[in-house]
């Protein structure tokens, strides 16, 4: 297991997890993931973050090829979540560092996660604090709620290097370490997937942090996140920053995602007819059956969509559980600037459309059209009505997009 020198005397010592598919218990990581950790060798030897529990041997094997773990002077904990701090107790035990740096809220999180914290040489640092490690300086920037209260960036001005923790991360397992080795579309997909499933609720914080980075005048020519690939060089860094700004601004895209679940295919037929209507008015869409798609895949799709069309039949006076789950997940991620619409078939009581509409309204979506409810199996006339509704929604979306 070899480390990789990403700048002079700065080495990647992380672990690649090709087997990961379930990310943190709520999202998918279809391409696996990585837990990145970095070591800087200066007068002081500093380890930035660790890896998930179970991968510490990989980190140590890479580390030992360049430095004796006991010679590590400092450990910086940019984020306490266990995919980065899981190996922290073991590393502290082996390295016996002089100091372990974290944010003030990081200390609280450490106290809540690790029973031995009282024996650790914890030192809290705030935005604006810096420490000298020889030829280099480490400047700390708290990035609260990006994406936990404790989250923090570490910046080395001499190397123009930003350790960004979870921000700018991507769930990619690969032997490549730099974004420029990957086709832009593939990278963009992984960035989108990560942002829309993890960072999205904190978009206001992203905008504030981008402003803060500009305000502090941080010159950056490398962003090293804790998941996925590293951005090196001006072009890659500019891409990462600009993409985050676009994600955070959430300008509505001229596309729709139609999400539904169905019992006897009636609601499904409505979904396809609505898609025809959207298409006839020049709005492309993707139909996602919740029995065949994970809720995190819907969020990734949502990134380019300004319209969510949600369908469920009425089942026991409610909606089908996969739709309820998806809408709960989506609500927590707080998407902004979207249009919404509801549809569904029913047999007798027909509560589905009202419930779906309430979910969409609860997320602050604009609802340009009434929900569409069809009794039993949609006939030709009902499908024509669905198509018309699709056309009307397309027109409303184009108006929202400024066309």
């Amino acid at each position, binding site marked *: 297991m070899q480390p990789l020198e990403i700048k002079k005397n700065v080495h990647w010592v992380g672990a690649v997890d090709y087997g990961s598919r379930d990310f943190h218990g709520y999202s998918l990581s279809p391409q696996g993931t990585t837990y990145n950790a970095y070591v800087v060798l200066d007068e002081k030897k500093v380890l930035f973050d660790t890896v998930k529990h179970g991968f510490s041997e990989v980190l140590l094997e890479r580390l030992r090829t360049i430095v004796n773990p006991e010679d590590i002077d400092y450990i910086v904990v940019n984020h306490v979540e266990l995919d980065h701090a899981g190996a922290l107790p073991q590393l502290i035990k082996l390295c016996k560092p002089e100091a372990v740096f974290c944010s*003030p*809220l990081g200390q609280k999180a450490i106290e809540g996660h690790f029973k031995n914290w009282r024996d650790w040489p914890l030192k809290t640092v705030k935005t604006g604090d810096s420490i000298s490690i020889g030829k280099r300086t480490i400047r700390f920037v*708290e990035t*609260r*709620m990006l994406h936990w*209260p404790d989250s923090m960036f570490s910046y080395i001005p001499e190397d123009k290097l930003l350790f960004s923790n979870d921000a700018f991360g991507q769930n990619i397992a690969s032997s490549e370490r730099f974004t420029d080795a990957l086709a832009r579309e593939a990278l963009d997909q992984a960035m989108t997937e990560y942002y829309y499933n993890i960072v999205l609720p*904190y978009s*206001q*914080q992203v905008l504030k942090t981008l402003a803060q980075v500009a305000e502090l005048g941080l010159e950056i020519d490398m962003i090293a996140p804790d998941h996925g690939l590293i951005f090196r060089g001006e072009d890659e860094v500019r891409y990462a920053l600009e993409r985050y700004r676009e994600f955070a601004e959430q300008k509505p895209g001229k596309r729709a995602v139609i999400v539904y679940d169905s019992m006897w295919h009636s609601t499904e037929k409505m979904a396809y007819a609505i898609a025809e209507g959207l298409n006839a008015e020049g709005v492309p869409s993707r139909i996602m059956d919740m029995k065949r798609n994970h809720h995190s895949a819907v969020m990734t799709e949502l990134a380019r969509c300004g319209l969510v069309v949600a369908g469920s039949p009425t089942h026991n006076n409610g909606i089908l559980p996969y739709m309820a789950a998806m809408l709960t997940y989506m609500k927590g991620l707080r998407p902004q600037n979207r249009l919404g619409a509801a549809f569904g078939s029913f047999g007798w009581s027909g509560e589905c459309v009202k419930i779906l509409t309430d979910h969409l309204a609860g997320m602050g979506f604009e609802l340009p059209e009434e929900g569409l409810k069809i009794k039993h199996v949609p006939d030709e006339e009902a499908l024509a009505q669905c198509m018309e509704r699709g056309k009307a929604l397309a027109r409303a979306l184009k108006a929202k997009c400024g066309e």
Partner: protein
Amino acid sequence: MEKYICKLCGHIYDPKEGDPDSGVKPGTAFKDLPADWVCPVCGAGKADFEPA
């Protein structure tokens, strides 16, 4: 007295409880919190709160 919720992390400030860790006594209305008071959970400022 009205409760306030942090828009960032969802923490609820309850005037009945105050925020003893930051020296805010029980019975302190949200408007009477010091201007530099921050959310004890995530560090957000007062401006990031809204009535719960």
